[in-house]
C-alpha cells in the first residue's frame, strides 16, 4: 500500500471530498429541502424583482432562506466531531466579524438593508475555510 501517495492530497481536495461526503450523509429529505430552498431563493431573486414583492413573495423568500439555513445546520449535525468543531469555530468567527463589519458600515452611513444577509453568509463561508485550515494543521 502506498501510504505516502495517499497522504499528499491537498487541503482544497479534502475540503471538496468531505463536503460531498457530508452532503451524502444527510437524509434524502433534508437534501431535497436544501435544494428546494436554494432553487426557490435564487429563482425568486432572479425572476421576481424586489419591488414586485408583496407578502406572498416575501413569505416564500423567508421560507426559502429557512430551508437553506436548516439544510446547513443539518449538514453540520451529521458531520463528524472534527467538522462539528470547525462549524462551531466558523460560527464564532463569523458572528464576531459580521457584527463588527455591519456595525462599522452603519456608523459610517452605509446601511445595507437586506444585503446585510449576504455579508453574514459571505463572512461565514470565509470563516469556515479559515477554521478548517486552522483546525487541520494549526
Amino acid at each position, binding site marked *: 500500500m502506498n*501510504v505516502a501517495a495517499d497522504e499528499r492530497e491537498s487541503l482544497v481536495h479534502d475540503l471538496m471530498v468531505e463536503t460531498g461526503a457530508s452532503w451524502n450523509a444527510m437524509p434524502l429529505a433534508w437534501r431535497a429541502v436544501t435544494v428546494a430552498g436554494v432553487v426557490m431563493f435564487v429563482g425568486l431573486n432572479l425572476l421576481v424583482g424586489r419591488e414586485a414583492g408583496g407578502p406572498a413573495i416575501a413569505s416564500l423568500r423567508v421560507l426559502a432562506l429557512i430551508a437553506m439555513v436548516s439544510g446547513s445546520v443539518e449538514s453540520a449535525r451529521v458531520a463528524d*466531531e472534527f*467538522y462539528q468543531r470547525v462549524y462551531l469555530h466558523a460560527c464564532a468567527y463569523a458572528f464576531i466579524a459580521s457584527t463588527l463589519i455591519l456595525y462599522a458600515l452603519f456608523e459610517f452611513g452605509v446601511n445595507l438593508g437586506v444585503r446585510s444577509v449576504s455579508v453574514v453568509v459571505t463572512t461565514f463561508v470565509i470563516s469556515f475555510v479559515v477554521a478548517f485550515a486552522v483546525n487541520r494543521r494549526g
Partner: protein
Amino acid sequence: MKNRVRELRLERDWTQKELGSRLGMSRQAIIAIENGKFDPSLKLAMRLSRLFKKPVEDVFQLDEA
C-alpha cells in the same frame, strides 16, 4: 494531549483515509488528531484504542508540560 495514533496506524500500514473509514470519521479528523490539533472525545478515543487493540492510556497521554 500527546498520542501515538500516527505510529500505531503506520504499524498496521493503514492510510489516514483507511483509518478514518474504519472509524466512520473524515481523513481531516485523523490528520488533526495525529497533529495534536484536535483532542477527540472520550468515546472516539476509546473507539480508536479498541481498533488498535491497546488500552486508551497507551494511545493517548496527558501532556504534563
